[in-house]
């Protein structure tokens, strides 16, 4: 039961939803699968005056466009992404990143748009507050931060934990955003502000309509890893997504995109480490070095009981392995396996 008052409207189209959201501005939210929003409302971290339900809008099926790029409706359920024959064939990294989200119940209800727009997390934030009798933290409009009391005022070190966003950024994907005045298109990477208090660069009356992923060029290979303790139904300790472009020799890297998720207020791209790979032969040593550099520049926030030191080690080890697996994948493909 959600104990505060709010209104509920059902939208038949995304345009209608945007118009409804615009009417109430800051106090209205779209309800897609509800798997992130409802727990947040129950804990009263989010107290919208109006929910605009998108559940009556049927998402379009994923489709390959004339230029070879793939377009995926933002209302697509994660289970559809995970199981779609087209998505698995054309963008296997996206299917993989959807497959590792939460449990089945979350994937069958949760949507792509809701996954990208999910709230940041923090052990203090994500619990019932009404019986704790402590002042609210910055994120809840208060004047302190419990886990990081020595931070400068208004600095919130909550962590953005989407498994899918890192994969999409590695794939150089864009999002189509519908607002009151029409649609705009930005890189998925540009969706994140890096500020825990307002993690998304979206206004209240803007909705994601679709995700567009460019076609893979010959020589493309990828690696994805969600680092976990249990291996099911848990948020990542760190999420690593790697997209490499290899020259014909299969070892020289001509382009690299590395993304680390679930360790900061938004996904992080270690640009210097990416550059250190370009034009080079990817041997053990070079990958080890790039992984070590990444773990330093990403500067993970301690979260959910994991220390910064532990997360740095985790990123270093798993990024090296993820890079190696990407190379191996390219070799397997070459060999027709």
């Amino acid at each position: 039961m959600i104990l505060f008052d709010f209104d509920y409207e059902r939208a038949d189209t995304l345009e209608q939803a945007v118009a409804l959201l615009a009417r109430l501005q800051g106090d209205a939210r779209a309800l897609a699968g509800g798997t992130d929003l409802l727990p947040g409302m129950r804990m009263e971290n989010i107290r919208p005056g109006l929910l605009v339900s998108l559940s009556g809008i049927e998402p379009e099926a994923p489709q390959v466009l004339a230029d070879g790029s793939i377009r995926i409706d933002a209302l697509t359920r994660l289970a559809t992404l995970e199981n779609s024959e087209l998505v698995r064939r054309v963008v296997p990294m996206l299917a993989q990143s959807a497959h590792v989200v939460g449990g089945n119940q979350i994937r069958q209800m949760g949507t792509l748009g809701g996954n990208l727009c999910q709230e940041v997390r923090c052990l203090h934030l994500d619990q019932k507050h009404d019986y704790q009798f402590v002042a609210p933290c910055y994120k809840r409009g208060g004047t302190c931060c419990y886990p990081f009391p020595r931070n400068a005022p208004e600095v919130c070190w909550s962590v953005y934990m989407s498994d899918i966003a890192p994969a999409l950024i590695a794939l150089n994907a864009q999002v189509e955003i519908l607002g009151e005045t029409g649609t705009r298109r930005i890189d998925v990477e540009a969706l994140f502000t890096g500020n825990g208090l307002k993690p998304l660069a979206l206004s209240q009356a803007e909705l994601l309509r679709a995700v567009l992923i460019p076609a893979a060029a010959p020589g493309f290979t990828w690696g994805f890893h969600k680092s976990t303790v249990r291996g099911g139904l848990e948020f990542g300790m760190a999420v690593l997504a790697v997209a490499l472009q290899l020259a014909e020799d299969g070892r020289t890297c001509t382009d690299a995109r590395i993304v680390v998720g679930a360790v900061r207020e938004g996904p992080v791209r270690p640009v210097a480490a990416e550059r250190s790979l370009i034009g080079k032969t990817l041997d053990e040593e070079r990958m080890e070095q790039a992984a070590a550099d990444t773990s330093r520049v990403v500067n993970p926030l301690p979260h959910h009981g994991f220390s910064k030191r532990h997360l740095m080690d985790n990123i270093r080890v798993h990024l090296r392995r993820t890079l190696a697996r990407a190379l191996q994948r390219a070799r397997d493909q070459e060999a027709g396996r």
Partner: protein
Amino acid sequence: MSKHRVTATVNGDAVEFLCETGETLLEALRDELQLTGTKEGCGTGDCGACSVMLDGRLVCSCLVLGVEAQGKTIETVEGMAKGDELHPLQRKFLEHAALQCGICTPGMLISARALLERNPDPTEEEVRYWLAGNLCRCTGYHKIVEAVLDAAREMRGA
């Protein structure tokens, strides 16, 4: 808080109930329709005790608003047995002693049935990954996994 009139199909029966905007489908099922088979463990999507089928999708009913059920088809654990005849999964859960306190059981059964409908011959690993969203604090899972595999065998007629 305003009340909404919701019509839906639950276990094959047309139903009508009133629910408040903030009421979840779980609460509507238990408190308005007296279908108390579906349990609440956490209320935040973590435990799966509240699992039901909503228009063929396995969902946590604690993460769905009651008003969202308008016009939808819902299946709960009460609809699994045919009269006195238990569903093979229910029978195998008893035979394998795959429950202790029983709070997770309705969710486990609904979730396991959804798996077997999609994949009649799952491996042990597939069963475990599929049931990851259903927590059990008593059994240690082993007997549950065995019961599901055994039920799958029987349902395939193997």
